[in-house]
C-alpha cells in the first residue's frame, strides 16, 4: 500500500504519468469500437425485457421439493405459455410466465400452488399489465432528458461549457456501454435495471466531476506559464487525481458488489440483483470514461480555444529554443527547475492574452 502511496506522490508531482491525453486517439477508437459493438448488439440481439415490460406474472414460491422442470411443466400446461423457472438460493422457485393479463394470472397462481403442493397464500406473485412497462420506460426517458439538461446547465455554470459537453458525451457513452452489455450478455431488463441505469447518471458524473475539479484548478493560471500546453496540463491533472478517482470508484463499487453477489446468492434474481448489476456495469464504465474519454475530450475542445492555441505556440517555441541550446526538452528535467525560475525565464513570443495579469 505504501508503494501505492508513493506512486500517488509521484503521480501527483508528475514524475510518473500515463499519457492519457496524448494517446486519446487510441482511447477514442477503443470507445467507438465498444459503442459500435453495443449498438450492434442492441440491434441484433435486442434487450431481454423482463415481464414488467411485456406483461405477465412472476411467482416466487417458498421452499419446495418439486423440481424446476416439473414446475415448468405445470406452469406451461396451465398457462398455455412458455414459463421460465429458476431455483432460488432459499430452496424456492421463481416461475415467470409472460403474456398473461392480471386476471388470468390469479387463476394460474392457484394451479401452481396445487401443483407444487404449497398453500397459495405463501406464493409471492407479481402481476404486471402490458402497458405498465411502457409507462415506466417513458418516465425513465423523461427523467433522463431532464437530468441531462439540468446537469449540463449546472456543469457549464460551475465549470465551463466544454467540460459540460465532455461530461455529457461521457455520460451517454456510459449509458451506451451499459445498455450494450445488457444486450450482449442477455441480462434481463427490469424496472430495477432502469433504476440502476438512472443512478449511474449521478454516479458516473461524480467521478467526472472529481477529475474536472482537479483539472480546473490545475489549469487556472495556465496562460501564465509556458511549460505545458493545455493538453499536457490536463494530463498532469488527470494523473494527479488518478489515485483519488481510483479510490472513489473502488469504494463505490464495493457496496454494489456486496449487493450484487449477496442479492444474487440469496435470492436468485430480484430487485437487489437488477439494481446492483446495472450499477456495477455502469460504475465501471463511468470510471473508465471519466479518465479516458471525458478529460481528453475537454483537452481536445480546449485546444481549439485561441488562447490555448497561442499557449501551445509559445510552449513549442520555447521548447525549440531550449533544444537549440542543447537542453533536453524533457518534462522530467523541466520539472526540476524551480518554479520561480521558470516563471521568470519565460522566453518565446508572449501573446497579449498570455501576459500575466498578476505578478507574483
Amino acid at each position, binding site marked *: 500500500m505504501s508503494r501505492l502511496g508513493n506512486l500517488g506522490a509521484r503521480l501527483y508531482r508528475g514524475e510518473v504519468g500515463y499519457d492519457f491525453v496524448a494517446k486519446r486517439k487510441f482511447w477514442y477508437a477503443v470507445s467507438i469500437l465498444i459503442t459500435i459493438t453495443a449498438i450492434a448488439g442492441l440491434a441484433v440481439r435486442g434487450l431481454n425485457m423482463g415481464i414488467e415490460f411485456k406483461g405477465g406474472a412472476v411467482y416466487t414460491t417458498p421452499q419446495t421439493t418439486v423440481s424446476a422442470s416439473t414446475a415448468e411443466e405445470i406452469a406451461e400446461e396451465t398457462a398455455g405459455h412458455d414459463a421460465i423457472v429458476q431455483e432460488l438460493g432459499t430452496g424456492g422457485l421463481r416461475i415467470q410466465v409472460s403474456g398473461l393479463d392480471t386476471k388470468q394470472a390469479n387463476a394460474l397462481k392457484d394451479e401452481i400452488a396445487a401443483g407444487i403442493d404449497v398453500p397459495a397464500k405463501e406464493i409471492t406473485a407479481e402481476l404486471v399489465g402490458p*402497458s405498465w412497462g411502457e409507462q415506466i420506460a417513458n418516465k425513465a426517458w423523461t427523467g433522463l432528458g431532464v437530468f441531462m439538461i439540468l446537469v449540463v446547465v449546472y456543469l457549464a455554470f460551475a465549470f465551463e461549457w466544454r467540460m459540460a459537453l465532455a461530461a455529457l458525451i461521457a455520460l451517454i457513452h456510459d449509458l451506451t456501454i451499459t445498455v450494450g452489455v445488457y444486450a450482449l450478455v442477455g441480462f434481463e431488463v427490469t424496472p430495477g435495471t432502469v433504476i440502476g441505469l438512472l443512478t449511474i447518471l449521478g454516479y458516473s458524473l461524480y467521478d467526472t466531476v472529481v477529475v474536472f475539479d482537479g483539472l480546473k484548478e490545475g489549469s487556472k493560471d495556465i496562460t501564465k506559464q509556458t511549460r505545458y500546453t493545455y493538453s499536457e496540463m490536463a494530463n498532469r491533472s488527470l494523473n494527479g487525481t488518478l489515485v483519488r478517482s481510483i479510490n472513489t470508484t473502488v469504494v463505490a463499487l464495493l457496496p454494489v458488489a456486496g449487493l450484487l453477489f449477496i442479492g444474487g446468492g440469496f435470492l436468485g434474481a430480484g430487485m437487489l440483483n437488477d439494481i446492483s448489476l446495472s450499477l456495477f456495469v455502469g460504475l465501471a464504465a463511468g470510471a473508465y470514461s471519466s479518465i479516458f474519454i471525458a478529460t481528453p475530450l475537454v483537452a481536445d475542445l480546449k485546444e481549439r480555444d485561441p488562447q490555448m492555441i497561442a499557449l501551445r505556440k509559445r510552449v513549442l517555441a520555447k521548447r525549440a529554443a531550449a533544444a537549440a541550446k542543447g537542453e533536453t526538452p524533457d518534462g522530467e528535467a523541466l520539472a526540476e527547475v524551480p518554479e520561480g525560475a521558470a516563471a521568470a525565464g519565460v522566453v518565446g513570443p508572449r501573446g497579449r492574452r498570455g501576459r500575466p495579469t498578476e505578478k507574483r
Partner: protein
Amino acid sequence: MAAPKKGRRPSGGQGRPGRALALILIAMVALTGGMFWSGHTTPRLGIDLAGGTTITLKAEAEPGKEDAVNETNMNTAIGIIERRVNGLGVQEAEVQKQGTDNIIVNIPKGTDEEQARQQVGTTAQLYFRPVVAVAASEPAAPEPSPSTGPSGSPSPSASPSGKGGTDEGDKATAPGSSPSPSATTQGRALTDALKKAPSPSGSPSGAPSPSGSTLPAPAVSPSADPATDAGLQAKFAALNCADPKQRSSVGKAAKPTEPTVACGRNGLGQWEKFLLGPSEVDGKEVDDAKGVLDSQRGIWIVQLEFNGKGAKEFAEITGRLASQPEPQNRFAIALDGEVVSAPSVDAAIPGGRAEISGSFNQESAQDLGNILSYGALPLSFEEQSVTTVTAALGGEQLRAGLIAGAIGLALVIIYLVAYYRGLSLIAILSLGASAVLTYTIMSLLGPAIGFALNLPAVCGAIVAIGITADSFIVYFERIRDEIREGRTLRPAVERAWPRARRTILVSDFVSFLAAAVLFIVTVGKVQGFAFTLGLTTLLDVVVVFLFTKPLMTILARGKFFGGQHPWSGLDPKRLGAQPPLRRTTRRAPAPIEPKEA
C-alpha cells in the same frame, strides 16, 4: 449545495471545531431520543419487505372525455377506493396518487388479497334501484323482528318507535313535517327524503318509516317481481348485514337488470338489509352531485343533477314511486352493491334536478355527493401491476439487503483501513455518524410523511455508503497532497479543506440532482430509491461539514495524527513528501489560513 465558491474564505467549522461537533452530536442525540420517544424505533417497512399487496391502477379516460383524468376526479377516485378498501376491515391500507394518472394501493399482509383486488380495480357501480323491502340486521342478538302484520300485506305503520331510544334516528319524517334534521353525526341517513330541487314547500313524505322489520309487500312491483321470487326472498331472509363477510360479498355481483339484496347503514349507523328491484337509473346518468348547506333551512342536503336520459328515467321512477306506500316509495342508491342512501320520494321529479334531504351533516352530505358524482365519472381504472409478497419472502429480502449492506460496509472499511491506515478511523466514525442520522431520520419519516422503507430504498442506502465514503477520500487525498508538498499536518488539514469542500459540494450536488429528478419523474419503487439516495447525499454534506472536518482538525492536534505517526496514514515519508526547500509547486502560496490554536 451551491455553485462552488471561488474565494477561499475560511470554512465555518474551521475556527471552532468543537462547536460543530457538539452541534451534530446534539442533533444525533435529539433524533435518537425523538425516535424512542415517538416509539417508532424502526423504519416503517414497505409492502415488499413486510409482506402485503401493492396494486397499481392507471386511470383511463373514455374516448372523447380525455380531460376527465384530472386532479379532482383522481382525488374523488382515491377517496372512493380508500372507502372500499377500508370497508374490508383493512388496517392501514394506503391509497396514494402517483404521477398524474396512477393510483397505488398498498394493502398490508393479512388481508384477502383477491377480494381487495376486486374492490379496488373495478369502476364504481352506481345504480338507483327501487326498494322492495327493508329490514334491520342487528349484530349478535338479532332484533326480534316484530312481524307486524302477516306477510303479504303492506304494513305502513309498523311499530313506530316503540322500542325506545334506539329508534330515534329512524323516526321518520312525520306527515306534514319537513324532513327531520335529526342530528345523527355518523353513517348515512337512510330516512332521507328526495325532493325536487329547488325544494318545493314541504310536501311531506308520506308514511312513517318502519323500524324493525317490514315484510315485503307484494304491491304493484314495477318490473320482474322480486317480492314473489322465492329464491330472492330466501336470500333476503338469510342475509345478516351485521356480518362483515356477508356484507362485503352481498350484492357485488348483482346485475343491474336483476333484483338483488344489499346492505346499508341507517342514520344511526345500524346495518339494514334491503331487497331491491332492478336498476332504474344508471349512476352514469348523474351529471353532477354535491353536498351543500341549505341556508334557508339550515340543513345539509345533497343536490343531484341528471343528464338528459337520466332526467327522463328519473322523472319516471319518481313518479311511480311517489304513489307507493312505504317502503316502496323509497329507492336505494347502491354503490358497488352497498346501499349508501335510500331516500323516500314524495312526488315525481321532472327536469333532472333533485335534492336529498334528511339527517345529513356536512361530512355525510359531501360524502354522498362525492359518491353520486363518482358514479358519473368517466374514469375507469386498469390494473397495471399487482404485487403480492408473502411476509416470509419480504423478511428474506430484508435480511438479504441487510447482509449485503453489512458486507458492502465491511469491504469499504477494510479498504479504507488498508489504504488510509489511521485516517480510516475518522472515515469509519463519520460513516457511523451518517448511519445514525440516516436510520433515525428514516424511522421518524415513517410516521411523519408516510415514508416506507422498500427494497429499492435499502439498495439506495447501500449505494450511499460509497457516496459518503467518496467524500472522505476526496478530503483525505487533498490532505495527503498538501503533505506531499512538504506541509506539516495542521496547515495541510486547513489548506486541503476549501478545495476538498468545493469538490464534495459539486459532486454531491450532481448526485442530489440525479436523485431529485429521479424522485420527481418516476413512479412506484423508483421513488423509494431516489428518496434514500437524495436523503443520504444531503446527510453526507452535513456529516462532512459538521463531523469529519472538525474531527480532523481536532485530531490533527493530537499526538498520533499530529505527530504523523507511520500508522496514521499521514506519514510524510510514506507519502513521499518533498522537503519544503525543493518545493516544486506551481501554485501561488495561498493566504495563510487562520490557525486555530
